[in-house]
C-alpha cells in the first residue's frame, strides 16, 4: 500500500512537472507579450519603447525562458504564485475570490445530480425495459445532447428576458448591500438557479444511465441471488446488497468528470457573468496575464491528479478485492 502511494506520488510529480513545463512554454511562445499589450496605447514611439522595456524588466520577461521558468518554480515552492500582470494583485487572491463561485455551483450541481439520478437509475434498473425506463432514458438522452451553453442561451432568452422570471447576470442584483439578510439570501438563491441547472441537466442522463447499468450488472451476481435465497425482502436486497456494490465504479466516474466541471465553465460563466475560475481564465488569456494562467493551469492539473489519486485509493477501501501490491 505504502509503496503504491509512493509510486503514484512520484509519477504524479513527473506529470506535474511536464504540465508546468508545457504550459509555461505554450504561454511564453504566444506572440504579443503583456508588456506590448499594455504599451500599445502610448502614442509617442520613444516613450512607448522605454515603458515597454521597463515593463519587461519588471515582469522578468527580459530573461531567457528557462531562467523565467526556474524563477517561477522557485517562487512556487515557497508558496508564492506571483502577482498578476494585469492589475498587479496577488494571483492567489484573485483565484481565491473566483474559487467559491465556481466550486459552489459545481458542488450544488453535483449534489442535485446524485439526488435525482440515483432513484431514477435504481428504478429504471428494477423495471428494465418498462415504460418508465424507456421514456426516462429517451428523455434524458435528448437532454444530454443539449449543449449546456445552448440551454443557457435559451433559458436566458425565455426565463430571463422574455418572461423576466429569474436574474442571469452575475451573483447579485444591484442594491444587494441594502437588502435584509433574508433578502440577500433569496437574491443569491435566485441567481444560482439558472447556472446550476445548466451545469446539472446534462449529467443527469449520464449518471442515471451509469447507475442503472452498474446495478443491472450487480443484480446478476451470485451474492445477490444468495441474499434473495436467504429470504431477504426485495427492498433490502436491492438497496443494501446490490446498490452499495454498484457504487464502486461511480467513484472513478466522479474523478473523471471533475476536470470537465471546471473547464466547462468558461462559456457558461462568461454567459452568466459569473465571477468564477472559468471567466478568470478566459480574461487572463485575453490579457496575457502569464502568472494567473500558469497558476490556474497548475492548480487544475493538481486537482485532477489529486482527485484521481484519491478515487483510486477509495476504490481499494470500498472494494477489498482490489490490491495495490503489484
Amino acid at each position: 500500500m505504502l509503496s503504491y502511494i509512493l509510486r503514484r506520488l512520484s509519477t504524479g510529480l513527473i506529470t506535474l512537472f511536464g504540465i508546468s513545463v508545457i504550459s509555461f512554454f505554450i504561454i511564453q511562445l504566444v506572440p504579443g507579450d503583456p508588456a506590448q499589450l499594455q504599451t500599445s496605447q502610448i502614442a509617442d514611439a520613444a516613450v512607448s519603447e522605454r515603458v515597454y522595456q521597463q515593463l519587461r524588466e519588471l515582469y522578468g520577461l527580459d530573461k531567457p525562458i528557462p531562467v523565467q521558468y526556474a524563477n517561477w518554480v522557485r517562487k512556487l515552492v515557497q508558496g508564492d504564485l506571483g502577482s498578476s500582470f494585469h492589475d498587479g494583485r496577488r494571483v492567489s487572491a484573485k483565484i481565491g475570490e473566483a474559487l467559491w463561485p465556481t466550486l459552489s455551483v459545481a458542488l450544488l450541481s453535483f449534489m442535485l445530480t446524485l439526488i435525482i439520478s440515483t432513484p431514477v437509475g435504481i428504478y429504471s434498473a428494477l423495471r428494465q425495459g418498462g415504460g418508465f425506463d424507456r421514456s426516462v432514458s429517451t428523455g434524458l438522452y435528448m437532454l444530454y445532447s443539449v449543449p449546456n451553453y445552448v440551454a443557457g442561451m435559451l433559458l436566458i432568452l425565455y426565463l430571463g428576458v422574455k418572461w423576466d422570471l429569474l436574474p442571469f447576470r452575475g451573483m447579485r442584483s444591484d442594491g444587494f448591500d441594502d437588502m435584509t439578510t433574508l433578502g440577500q439570501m433569496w437574491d443569491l438563491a435566485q441567481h444560482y438557479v439558472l447556472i446550476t441547472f445548466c451545469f446539472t441537466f446534462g449529467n443527469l442522463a449520464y449518471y442515471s444511465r451509469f447507475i442503472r447499468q452498474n446495478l443491472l450488472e450487480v443484480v446478476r451476481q451470485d451474492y445477490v441471488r444468495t441474499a434473495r435465497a436467504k429470504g431477504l425482502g426485495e427492498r433490502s436486497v436491492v438497496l443494501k446488497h446490490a446498490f452499495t456494490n454498484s457504487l464502486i465504479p461511480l467513484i472513478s466516474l466522479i474523478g473523471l468528470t471533475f476536470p470537465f466541471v471546471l473547464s466547462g465553465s468558461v462559456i457558461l460563466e462568461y454567459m452568466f457573468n459569473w465571477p468564477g475560475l472559468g471567466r478568470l481564465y478566459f480574461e487572463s488569456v485575453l490579457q496575457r496575464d502569464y502568472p494567473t494562467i500558469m497558476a490556474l493551469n497548475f492548480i487544475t492539473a493538481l486537482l485532477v491528479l489529486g482527485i484521481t489519486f484519491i478515487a483510486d485509493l477509495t476504490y481499494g477501501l470500498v472494494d477489498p478485492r482490489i490490491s495495490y501490491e503489484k
Partner: protein
Amino acid sequence: MSAEATTSGEPARSYWHITWRRFRRHRLGMVGLCVVAALFLVSFLSPMLANEQPILCRFDGSFYYPAVIDLIHQIPGSKLIIKKKRPYRLATFDFKREFDPDRGDWALWTPMRYGPREIAAEPLAGPSSRHWLGTDQSGRDVLSRMVHGTVVSMKVGFLSMGIAVILGLVLGCIAGYAGGIADLVISRFIEVVMCFPPFFLILAVLAWFPPSIENVMIVIGLTRWVGIARFARGEILRIRETDYALAARSLGVRPAQLVLRHLLPNALAPVLVSVTFGIAVSILIEAGLSWLGFGVQPPDPSWGTILRSGYENLFTAGHMIPPACVAIFLAVLSFNLVGDTLRDVIDPRLQAERA
C-alpha cells in the same frame, strides 16, 4: 458475427457489410444518419440554397451562372481553374441593383435570395415573409447565415477529427506496438495532456494563432487526439496477443506491415465510434469558441457567431437565438445517435446479450 452469417444461410459477408445491415435495424440510428446526411447536403449545396446571386440568369444579353461557380469554388484549388465571369467577379457589383427586366434580363434565383454577408434589410428585424428568421445587427439575413454556418460546423467537425485520428492512431500504434521507451514517453505525454481541462488547453493554444476557422480546426485536432491514441494503444496491445497476429508474425510479416494490414483494421471499428462522438464535441467546441470570439470572425457566418449576435442584442433581437440553438442541438444529437448505434452494433458482447 460469423454465427449470424451461417445460420441465415447466406454467404459470408464482409465485416462492414454486416455492420451496416445491423445498423439499418436501429431506427434512431438511421434517423441520426439521415440528419447527418442532410446537414452534409445543406453545407455542400449552401451556395445554391442561399446566395445573393442567381443560379442561372440572363444579364445584358449574355448568360451567367454565378451560384454554380460558387458551389464549385468550395473545392479547394478550383478558384485557379474556374473563375466567375467579369461583372460577377467584382466585389462592388450588385446584381440585384443592376437587374433590369425591361432589357430582357431574367434570373433563376436560389431558394433564399440573400447571401450570408449581404446587407439586405433593416438591422435586427424580426421574422417576416422575406426574411424567415429575421435579420441580424447588420441587416443580414439570418436564415442565409444559418445555412452557410452549416459549412463551418461540418468542416470543423470532420477535419479536426481527421487530424485527431491521424495523430492518435500513429502515436497510439507506436506506443502499443513498440512498447518500451516509446510507450513510456507517449503514455506520459497523453497523461499530461489529459490533465488539462480540454477547454483551457484549447484556449491557451489558440492564443498563439490569429483567430480563424482553420486555426480552430487545427487546435481542436491537436488537443483531441489523446483519447484516440489511448484507445488505439489499448486495442493494439490486446490484438497483438491474438492468434492471428502471431500467425502473421510467424509468416514473417514485417512490423510496419503487421500493424497496418493486420492490427489496425481490427482496431478501427471502435475508433470510429469515438470519432463520431468526437465530431459532435468538435462542432460544440467550434460554436463555443466562435461565441467567445476566438473562432470564425465577422462578417463570416457560423452558428456560434449568430448565437453571439443574439446574446449581444438579447433585449431587442431574441429571434436569432432559437434557430442557432436548434441547429447546434440537432447536429450534436444526430452525431451522438449515430455514435451510440455504431457502438451497439459493433460491440459483440452486446450482440450476444441481445441474442
